[in-house]
């Protein structure tokens, strides 16, 4: 339990926020570049996605435990946290539907681009929400009353 105390440290939280925001920005950047079809970039983009999702989920958990519900800014951060969580769940569910849509179409002469556009759109939404949440937390970190450190 002693080791877990580091999670409640403000300095650790600051670095964690930085790590998350940088990973998410790189995820967005490399996935956009990946559209050009370069394998190496797509591989890095895939690794970044796999890294970014747990980073963001853990960040959301940290914010729930460290944001001050008794403060106005703290409450707003918590609301934004909930919103990001819901957006992530909805986006991932719809990503599944977009994939299924690309496979289950019945006219061979049509181009199933809708599913792919939807995937890109949903992906951008959750990454952007993640970046915004991390940045808002980073900016409000100096406000002592908004956090429980």
């Amino acid at each position, binding site marked *: 339990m002693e080791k877990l105390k580091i999670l409640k440290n403000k300095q650790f939280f600051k670095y964690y926020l930085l790590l998350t925001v940088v990973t998410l920005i790189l995820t967005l950047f490399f*996935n956009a570049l*990946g*559209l050009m*079809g370069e*394998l190496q970039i*797509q*591989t890095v*983009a*895939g*690794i970044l*996605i*796999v890294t970014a*999702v747990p980073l963001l*989920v853990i960040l959301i*958990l940290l914010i729930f435990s460290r944001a001050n519900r008794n403060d106005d800014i703290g409450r707003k951060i918590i609301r934004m946290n909930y919103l990001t*969580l819901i957006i*992530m*769940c909805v986006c*991932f*569910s719809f*990503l*599944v539907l977009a*994939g*299924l849509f*690309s*496979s*289950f*179409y*019945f*006219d*061979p*002469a049509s*181009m*199933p681009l809708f*599913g*792919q556009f939807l*995937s*890109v759109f949903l*992906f951008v939404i959750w990454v952007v929400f993640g970046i915004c949440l991390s940045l808002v937390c980073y900016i409000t970190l100096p406000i002592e009353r908004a956090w429980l450190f």
Partner: protein
Amino acid sequence: MNIHKILRYILLFFCYSNLVLFLFLTIVYVFFDNTLIGFVVGIIYPGIAPLLCLVYLVSGLIIVRFSFMKDTRLDRIGALTIIVICAFMLIVAFIPYMQISYRVRDAENQLFQTYGTTYTNLTTSNMRPVPYSIYDNIFGFPIDEAKFSVQTDILYLNNGNDSFYFDWYKPNGDGPFPVIIAIHGGGWVMGNKAGGNVIPFNKYFASKGYVVFDLQYGVYDVTKVPEMGDFGKAFAMISSLITPKYNSSYTIQQQLENIGYFTKVLEVNRTKYHADLNKTFIVGRSAGGHMASIVTLGYKNPLFAGNFSSIMNITAGIWFYPPTNLTKSKSPFFDKLLVGSLPLDLQYNKFSASFLVKNSTVVPPIMIVQGDKDGVVDYPANLEFQEYAKSLNKTCIFVTIPWGGHAFDINFQTYGGQISTYYIERFMALELGG
């Protein structure tokens, strides 16, 4: 009761429902894969489970947060139960992905043992670069639609009762192109070309320079089996949604004759369709995989004399989750399906790949692709078939899709579709001489 409390109950109800639903899907997928519902879950679940794990993890989190926050023994047990359930579902969701490298290594070894340095020196610049890509899993399988055209519903046979059509996927250019004849599945009693036969697969190979023919070949009318009673009628009603309206019922032999007739039509029109019949691949899924196995192994067998185009040369057969050994069972179902020109026992032999592989003089190379959680077609039986074929010195590559269910490639962009396509295109290129 205030509005916050009501909202909290609604949220909790939603979260519990999510958890129950996903737990049900996971249990069915892991333990009941040989049931009808297990078969349906197995088609889609492994491909989408990792993306959905966030939904039930969040549900679990909310349940623990709102239902079990008091520091009592009962609450601690409740919270622990939820955590264990979520961990179980999470592990199941990622098990197939952890096995990918092992199965890929196995397929690589088989190809290397069969083709040696020809495989390692194969030019793959025009092929999928990796067996599995997370990027493609999320954003879709890249298919260059500009490299081919599609013409649908071309009539090839009218037998007086029914008309049979095919779809033609033509690569750009004059060809002639190597041919893929794609045969849909559906347990011989339902199914259709196009939407019933993995369109992205056909498009992908058309974009790579193969002319693909996706055809209808008739189905058996289950209402003609009185022993099936109301189930048969109910089944027929459901299958009518995904099956063309046929006026007649077709036994397996008649279905095969229709496919054979198509090869003859193709022979006559090979210039028109830019088809190089000397390089023909037969691809089928499930019951279509069974049909593909019979065409692959039987097209030069005297048992099927006159059935197929005489100039067609089958370069290889690619069978997705095929039944390779039909044995007489207590059910009258197969007996009726297999009625044909020979006594029933011989018909069972005639339509079994395990019989034909030994009793045919021409046995083209075979690639079998199947998931090891296939609850419909016996996976170990097909592994035995591979061993049997290899003991007869025939080329038979077996690609296992980790924890893949029956029809795993319907959701084409997931790992099953990606791995199978990766090895199929290499196998085909090797058989075409690199």
